[in-house]
């Protein structure tokens, strides 16, 4: 029975619904801009990671190493671009 019940998938599904609801709350509840943005950023990245691992099976293929490596590289580049641009265009200006 244990093997037959897709526990991971069900938990993943419920979690992704919950994340969506939390993100929606930013619109319906009255919170400050900063709090709202923090909530959105956190839920968005958790959601993306969840989808990648649970539903897109990133860890289950024989080349999961290169998939994760590519993902980390992508995250690194994205952070460098975002914070580098902020540095050059806003903070360091």
């Amino acid at each position, binding site marked *: 029975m244990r093997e037959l019940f897709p526990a991971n998938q069900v938990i993943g599904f419920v979690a992704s619904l919950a994340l969506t609801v939390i993100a929606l709350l930013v619109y319906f509840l009255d919170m400050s801009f900063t709090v709202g943005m923090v909530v959105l950023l956190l839920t968005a990245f958790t959601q993306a990671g969840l989808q990648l691992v649970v539903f897109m099976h990133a860890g289950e293929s024989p080349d999961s190493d290169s998939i994760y490596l590519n993902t980390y*590289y992508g995250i*690194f580049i994205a952070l460098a*671009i975002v914070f580098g*641009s902020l540095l050059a265009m806003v903070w*360091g*200006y």
Partner: protein
Amino acid sequence: MEFFKQFAVPNPTPTIYLSMVAIGLTLIAVLAGITYFKKWGYLWSEWLTTVDHKRIGIMYLISALLMLFRGGVDALMMRAQTSMPGNELLSAAEYNEIFTTHGVVMIFFMAMAFITALMNFVVPLQIGARDVAFPRLNALSFWLYFMGAMLFNLSFVIGGSPSSGWTSYFPLAGNELSPHIGTNYYMIALQIAGLGTLITGINFIVTIFKMRAPGMKLMKMPLFTWSALITNLLITFAFPVLTVALAMGTMDRLFGTHFFTMDNGGMAMLWANFFWVWGHPEVYILVLPAFGIYSEVISTFSKRNLYGYTSMVVSIVVISTLAFLVWVHHFFTMGQGALVNSIFSITTMAIAIPTGIKIFNWLFTMWKGKIQFTVPMLYSLGFIPIFTIGGVTGVMLGIASADYQYHNTMFLVAHFHLVIIPGVVFAMLAGMTYWWPKMFGFMLNERIGKWAFWNIAIGTCLAFFPMFISGLDGQARRMYTYSEVAGFGIWNLLSFFGALGLAMGFILIVFNVYYSARYASRDIGDDPWDARTLEWATRTPVPEYNFAVTPQVDSREPLWDSKYEGKTLFKEEIKDIHMPNNSGQPFIMTIFFFVAGFGLVFSMWPVVYVAAAGIAVLLFIRSFERDDGRHIHAEEVRETENNKRGDTR
């Protein structure tokens, strides 16, 4: 009549009218020729619908050479205009259009196409694969690139070319300062071609990760394949930035948004920021495949294995990461603070370290080798000193405080040409000459090739060294003329002679193709250079399935070891081979892209809607199509192989 006015060129001159006529006549002649020789069927079934990576590679190569010609003519016109003070060959407006076109054509349509040509032809052969991972997407990539290039070139005769530089900085490129549609061509043609590049990037990452011959571990891959892998990784992570920036720019121009405007909260400098977030990785996208080619060529013609393989791989990987951390060095003078400039100054200089490691590895490879001075080797040898000069001046430019002096002068122009020409053009010519026999079944004439090399090498130095001096003396880039008292005349005249030398070199290359096609021996065997890697283990010309039997690899130089160490490459029996079917969809879909692009340039919405619907329909058809490919039967393969063995022509 009103309707046709928008297509008129804003600064018409007799040259432009002449070119219109010439283009029209050439087009008619080509179409008539194809019809007369009844080649439509051949063209359609063998080229327009092909998904074979080798043919796609050859189509990229032909396009790249055509674009090299186009960009080269632009360069000659610019150098002729500036060869004397106060010259009036070109007007200021024409000069602006020409340097913009020159830059865009050379980077996007010549250099990118050239590297993609060689990656397409060589990488699957080098890893022992039968094609790329997604052959039909590969065809789509090519046609997207091709249609983007054609759309951009059309601007010359219909509607007028963009004129705000290949960097197209806002606010200059915005509607207020560039009211003409030229910049729309830039935004949309690059978007279409860039989409093709992005698809290539993904395609080749998957190909290299998933389709290597058994036994070829990552650290056993040939260096050209390594450099292709990292290049495509850079493409996949850098091009989306360009895509987004171009989309925002397009919206500013067509739909009145305010991303890059000076008012209503727009931020014009954000364009420069995005452009270089993509742009600096882009220069490494161009130069890394070149590094790969040099590694292959230098080790083949030094008759020994590459010195420091591991450090070569590590330095490519380090370069690929640093490439994303330096972009601000392109606008040190835009007004950000000293802290920001210092940070990016340091990362910039750090790039010189892995690059230096590579240079030394090549030198050490040659150190104890038996050097053969073939044409590809000459380009590699010429590359080392010239590229080093370009690189060292790059480090000078990377010193932020000093860059206030150099920025936007001819000094910068000298720097980047002296890295890009040896780093891309030399490499591509070396690679083209090196792999030519595999592509076309005969070798290019060495004597004419050497003449071409010397013209190009000396021409490059003569064309660009003087710019260091006139640049330091204060000659600004992108200026169509200068007065005699400035004293730049002599340097620009020398530079013009250099440009003529380069032109002579290219003429010799074209002549060489003609001469060798006509007279060269076809009896060259499969491995005319006595090379080391798998692409030379195929037959010449390469059969469509590449390898009758998948090779088994257990070293970095499998072919060399099978020739001289007695290892067997092909251990299995010939079996049925599974190949992808040809398809006309990519070609047809990109015609819709072309039409949609044209509609967008002129804001002709009905045209855009119809073409977009066409694209959607084709996507829909593709999604529900079943295409399992086809099999070449073992019998047939055996027959082809036997014929090839006996056939020396």
